[in-house]
């Protein structure tokens, strides 16, 4: 994907992620500037989780989803949700906890999912940048 096309695509798909939506969801927007879409999930029950989606070459490639502390440090351990989407094991490429979910680069590059390529999801409803971020957020809210 041409870099300019990725940038424009990124801009169009993040236009709706605004302060009103963030306020409703308990998100703090850190940055929305290509290639990074970065927000902090907050609520009264769980420690905050900072999620950085690195969207270079979007949407040829899905976003790489990084899990950080509120202060921006890479997490070496995470709380997990019942489905295992927040995966506390070491990803073979990043060597960090990761998001095991269709739509994350870490899922589609994991040896367990070579038969579930991103190509089949690109452009589908819910697999835009906002949709992917929303799914991660909903998984995070399921942590017990």
């Amino acid at each position, binding site marked *: 994907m041409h870099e300019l096309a990725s940038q424009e695509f990124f801009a169009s798909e993040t236009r709706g992620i605004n302060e009103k939506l963030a306020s409703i969801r308990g998100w703090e927007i850190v940055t929305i500037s290509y290639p990074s879409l970065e927000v902090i999930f907050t609520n009264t029950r769980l420690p905050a989780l900072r999620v950085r989606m690195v969207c270079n070459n979007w949407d040829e490639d899905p976003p790489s989803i990084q899990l950080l502390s509120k202060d921006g440090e890479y997490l070496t351990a995470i709380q997990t949700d019942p489905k295992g*989407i927040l995966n506390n094991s070491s990803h073979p490429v990043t060597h960090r906890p990761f998001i095991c979910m269709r739509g994350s680069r870490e899922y589609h590059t994991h040896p367990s999912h070579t038969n579930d390529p991103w190509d089949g999801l690109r452009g589908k409803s819910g697999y835009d940048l906002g949709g992917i971020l929303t799914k991660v957020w909903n998984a995070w809210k399921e942590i017990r």
Partner: protein
Amino acid sequence: MENREKHENFVEVTVNTTAGSYPEEGAERVSAHQKVNVILKKAADHLKITDTSGWVATATVDGQSKTITVDSSYIDNGLTGMVDIDFGPAAGGGGTCMN
């Protein structure tokens, strides 16, 4: 009394998604007896969201986030006055990465 009864028959609704909000400005005044899925469909059409199957609608009721039964009315969902609906896909598929 008559004016208050009329007021309670309506809600002011916005639907908020990562694709944008509907309406873009202000809120839409709808009958409190209308099913919530009516405005969700309008929002999806306006925002060009082609498929909302598996999506979840939530709103704050008495300070708590509550999942809305979209085939029921605002009244039946306990939604009154200004209603900000959050609408988006549920947690995704996956969770089977094994090392």
